[in-house]
């Protein structure tokens, strides 16, 4: 068996809120709670959830930009929470990040050559100026830009091209892992398609594994082989995307899938809706985190936290009653169809 590229065990990240009253203890937000996940090499992994669920915190922790409160995060077998900053810096050449906003993540005062070469300086590369230029040219070519573009400044590019520059910057150190936090959500539909195709080409060409964070389910379904759905800092469902989105088991995943607007399905009545909005979770409550919004919640859900259990072949779900909700949903859908 090959070594997983990312292995996360019992990850927890708590944030202490400022004390509201002198006479009460400060409350704690559980941004991530008991996260276990494994990303296999060359199987791109999607992380899905609503804003505030902790998906970006998870990305930052995988990149070593934030420290977990407890638990281990192994990237290629090395626990990045335990190594020194100098070692982490060296390892970074093997894992890079692409951010959501191609306008904010590129320094407007630097030309593209400097921007794309930046990681080489950061990892303490020893190449000559000429070699660096060649590497930048190569990276730009592989994202579909011209080598001559390296003399330009970010403002001279369109949104899609800027995102390509950001991807070129991530590519230049030849990483085996790229964490992409909402890489296409700021882009127009036709440009989004170009960037998604590019990411897939890079996957095939360089054997890069992507960790792809997005709120757009169809994009994750297209770009990734595996995915996890996070709700309030916990993974509620996880598995191959083909199963996860075609046959969602957790009521939360179902409501997400149902909520996506579809072309040509006018005035569709939605079978499942999650009634109220996401709340941040303070204090380690007992019971299922989704119980308050779940239309299937029973007594057991309020007292016992459901564990993530494997249902079939790597598809796992954290719900006590997923069998029941599945059949309910099926009948509800036939009712809607009729």
């Amino acid at each position, binding site marked *: 068996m090959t070594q997983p590229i990312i292995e996360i065990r019992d990850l927890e990240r708590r944030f202490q809120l400022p004390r509201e009253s002198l006479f009460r203890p400060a409350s704690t937000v559980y941004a991530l709670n008991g996260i276990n996940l494994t990303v296999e090499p060359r199987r791109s992994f999607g992380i899905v959830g*609503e*804003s505030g669920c902790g998906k970006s915190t998870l990305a930052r922790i995988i990149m070593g930009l934030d420290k977990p409160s407890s638990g281990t995060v192994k990237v290629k077998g090395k626990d990045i929470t335990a190594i020194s900053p100098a070692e982490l810096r060296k390892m970074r050449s093997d894992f890079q990040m692409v951010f959501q906003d191609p306008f904010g993540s590129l320094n407007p005062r630097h030309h593209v050559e400097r921007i794309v070469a930046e990681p080489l300086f950061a990892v303490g590369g020893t190449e000559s100026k000429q070699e660096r230029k060649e590497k930048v040219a190569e990276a730009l070519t592989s994202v579909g830009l011209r080598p001559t573009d390296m003399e330009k400044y970010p403002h001279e590019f*369109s*949104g*899609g091209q800027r995102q390509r520059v950001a991807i070129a910057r991530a590519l230049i150190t030849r990483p085996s892992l790229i964490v992409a936090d909402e890489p296409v959500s700021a882009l*127009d*539909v*036709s*440009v*989004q*398609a*170009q960037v*998604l*195709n590019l990411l*897939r080409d890079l996957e095939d060409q360089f054997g890069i594994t992507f960790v792809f964070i997005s*709120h757009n*389910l*169809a*994009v994750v*379904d*297209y*770009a990734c*082989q595996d995915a996890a759905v996070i709700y309030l800092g916990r993974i509620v469902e996880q598995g191959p995307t*083909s199963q996860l*989105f*075609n046959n969602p088991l957790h009521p939360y995943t179902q*409501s*997400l*899938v*149902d*909520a*996506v*607007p*579809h*072309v*040509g*399905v*006018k*005035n*569709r009545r*939605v079978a499942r*809706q*999650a009634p109220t*909005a*996401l709340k941040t979770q303070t204090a380690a409550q007992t019971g299922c985190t989704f119980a308050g919004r779940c239309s299937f919640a029973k007594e057991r859900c309020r007292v016992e936290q459901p564990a993530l259990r494997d249902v079939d072949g790597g598809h796992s779900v954290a719900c006590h009653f997923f069998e029941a909700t599945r059949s309910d949903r099926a009948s509800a859908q036939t009712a809607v169809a009729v």
Partner: protein
Amino acid sequence: MLQVKNLNVTLAGATRDISIVKDVSFELDAGRSLGVVGESGSGKSMTALALMGLLPGAIRASGSINLAGQELLALSEQEMCSVRGNKVAMIFQEPMTSLNPVQTIGRQVAEPLILHKGMTRAAARQEAIRLLDRVGIPDAARRLDVYPHQLSGGQRQRVMIAIALSCSPKVLVADEPTTALDVTVQRQILDLLRELVSETRMALIIISHDLGVIGEMVDEMLVMYGGNVVERGQADKVFAQPAHPYTSRLLEAIPRFGMSRSERLKTIPGTMPEIGSEMKSCIFAGRCDLVCADCLQAPPPFVSVDDAHVAACIKAGRVMETVQ
């Protein structure tokens, strides 16, 4: 009820006028909905701002916007103020920035009621409670005195909708109403808008880059590209049989559930021509895979493919055949 004819939006430049929106025409009846779809820079938001008389500085609208017999473009700014928020209302993309952060939401909902309907403060407050309750703000009477930062994004958008509804507008313009929201919240807001349209018989104009949102919400739609309308028709027909190559390629570029991994997304090569570039050819010609010599001669006229379904393409309606 709302008739827009040859609406042009132009920016007066130093040397020449730059055309931002060209010849937009449509009609909309009470209780009906229209979707305007396009990528950034297509002129869809400028069209919305022109309808509201909110175009910035040096940008001018010409043509005709006729709302129930009243010509909006002929009104003075002062007269427009009595129409805006009263007969036509708008909700914006960013519920965070479009609400005033230092006023309670009760005051903001009551403002148009006092201004346009001449209600007393007390009466406006009562009406504000009813409106907030209608848009699904729980415990509305108590929430009147909270500030926008105390509400979630979805709730803020509900407050925006309550403000827009306050004077029972004839037309509601929603510019990307759900773009900043999560999918489950988006679903609730879309359902709310749909209910309100059937309840109040107002006309709804939704502007969005999300074809899914447009596809679910509207009766008719306009597809805009580079400041021009390239296709217009009933939404279900446009989606089922796009007549313009741009619409067709745009639909193919969206990732769908259950696409196989070997399948590549179709892309549209190139980029949209810059605003104001003078085109002697079809505006899409540079990116179109069906382009022929005739396309480069002159901008194409609207070709009718079906009942009230038109596209600005000389090959309109044969787009699908040619591909297959």
